[in-house]
């Protein structure tokens, strides 16, 4: 009790110094948390992937499509429960600015939302979508971002599929939880295919990729091999992988950036460690006479060392706690500013755990050397010291 009292009183002895150190810690822990959240956001697509969904695409490259008749052949393979087509549309909404970009996919309207239970739909809206050939289901984040509502018409300029395309908002799907991305639009693949038949017949009857639902997630490798075996030596060989691996493939293209963000987040911690270590070293040096006095009075080196270490940990705990608490509102602001880039930008529990760990590690590491020095100070030398 007395120990804690001394530690607390010592912390606020040099108010400005402690306040600046704590402010530095707040900024560092906050920055660390935000950067870790960015890394998490990068992997958000992979995080929401289901273990029972596989992606089958052209083995040569994702830009090459697969014949639509593959759908029936994949469906016939053992362990496959359902297959849905998905085509990246790449339409331009209003202009090519980043703020107006959102993903659009032409999909099998009849089963698509059965494959993705993480998207919550209203039965009446889903029915209306299935009935309307130009109907589109849009995610909640997308609807909120652009103010789309049911009944609106969304005009898109085709970039991959030329022409002006119009879609009617049939419904808005909601996320199951805050890890679910709802910043995209789904429309009928049939609509796309029919238009292609009319305008570019050679490009009709092709799918960008197939989403394959399997019975048992533990058989993913076996089923994937079976699918790829089915199309071996064909004109369009396939590459089948889990949805997670498929998503991580995209992330891997930007792995260097993710790595840089990670490194910077730890560099921030390293810098604040140097700041706190310097503060604690100064503090311990100034108080050598007090530590010597305590030792002269009969207090052991352990008590004296624990005073400094406790102060260091307490300072980082205060700064860390404020930094962690500040992460939530600041992340919310970031999300509102970067929503287009990171549809899922949430402070994950393991980020908070890492922030706690970082604050604790900084406190211990910064305090350990001054603490040992204070504990080892010779009484006669310490008493002579004028701080």
């Amino acid at each position, binding site marked *: 009790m*007395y120990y804690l009292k*001394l530690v607390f*009183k*010592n912390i606020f*002895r040099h108010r400005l110094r402690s306040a600046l150190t704590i402010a530095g810690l707040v900024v560092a822990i906050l920055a660390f948390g935000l950067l870790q959240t960015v890394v998490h956001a990068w992997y958000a697509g992979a995080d929401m992937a289901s273990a029972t969904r596989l992606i089958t695409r052209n083995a040569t490259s994702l830009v090459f499509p697969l014949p639509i008749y593959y759908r029936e052949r994949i469906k016939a393979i053992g362990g496959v429960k359902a297959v849905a087509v998905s085509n990246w549309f790449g339409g331009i909404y209003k202009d090519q600015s980043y703020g107006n970009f959102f993903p659009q996919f032409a999909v099998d309207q009849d089963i698509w939302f059965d494959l993705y239970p993480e998207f919550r739909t209203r039965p009446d809206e889903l029915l209306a979508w299935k009935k309307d050939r130009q109907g589109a289901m849009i995610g909640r984040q997308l609807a909120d971002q652009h103010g789309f509502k049911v009944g609106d018409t969304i005009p898109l300029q085709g970039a991959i599929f030329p022409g002006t395309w119009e879609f009617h908002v049939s419904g808005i799907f909601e996320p199951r939880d805050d890890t679910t991305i709802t910043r995209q639009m789904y429309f009928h693949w049939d609509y796309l295919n029919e238009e292609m038949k009319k305008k570019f017949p050679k490009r009709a009857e092709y799918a960008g990729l197939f989403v394959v639902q399997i019975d048992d997630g533990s058989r993913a490798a076996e089923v994937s091999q079976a699918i790829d075996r089915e199309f071996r030596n064909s004109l369009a060989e396939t590459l089948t992988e889990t949805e997670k691996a498929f998503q991580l493939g995209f992330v891997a293209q930007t792995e260097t950036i993710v790595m840089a963000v990670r490194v910077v987040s730890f560099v921030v911690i390293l810098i604040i460690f140097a700041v706190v270590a310097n503060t604690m070293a100064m503090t311990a040096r100034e108080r050598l*006479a*007090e530590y010597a*006095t*305590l*030792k*002269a*009075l*009969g*207090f*052991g*080196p352990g008590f004296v060392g624990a005073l400094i270490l406790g102060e260091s940990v307490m300072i980082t705990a205060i700064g860390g706690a404020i930094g962690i608490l500040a992460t939530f509102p600041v992340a919310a602001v970031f999300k509102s500013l970067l929503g287009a880039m990171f549809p899922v930008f949430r402070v994950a529990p393991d980020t908070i755990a890492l922030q706690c760990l970082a604050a604790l590690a900084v406190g211990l590491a910064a305090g350990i050397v001054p603490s040992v020095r204070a504990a080892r100070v*010779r*009484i*006669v030398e310490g*008493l002579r010291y004028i701080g």
Partner: protein
Amino acid sequence: MAERPIVSISHLSKSYRRGDQVVPVLRDITLDIARGEFIALMGPSGSGKSTLLNLIAGIDKPDAGTLLVDGEDITTLGEADLADWRASHVGFVFQFYNLMPVLDAFENVELPLLLTSLSRRERRERVETALGLVGLADRMEHYPNELSGGQQQRVAIARAIITDPAIIVADEPTGDLDRKSAEEILGLLRRLNAEMAKTVIMVTHDWHAVESARRVTHLEKGELVDEPAGARAERNKRL
């Protein structure tokens, strides 16, 4: 049979290292201090008087010789045992008071009691008594920076006696005080010696302070010497 001295020093030597050089500070000191004595250690700067006081107080260790305090050779004690021994046997009064600036007068005096098994109530009673004894009962909640030098030194004396040690070591206790405050502090030390039978060992340059002591011992260049002629003349003049 004569009473055993509370401090018995025999052939004590101490030197410090300064780079490659060994600087002797105390040479072959032999000295007995009787229980209940008030002794002043005098000498010029660098004569070794503070070092001798530190050795007696158990905050430094000699290179050679024996140092018996209350029959116990403290030179053989390890760090932890020596800390325990100091807590129960010695009260410290420093020139610059050495109070904890973040603790108030009450808490500063209570500090040594935290090493005992006394209850909070017992500690409170003792602290109030000690602060009352030094005339600071009404300043218990004052922090050191809210007290004058003399008051701070009185708090330090209360802290020194709180565990009821047999020996009070005082290193230049009046060195940082004005004449009036110094006189008050010396009066307190005399009271502790006379009324509570504390053995007071004091290092000082102050002739006023010396007058409070019952015995004066001189050190010069690390050795005990007879009272120098100059010192004797000064003492006679004052008497």
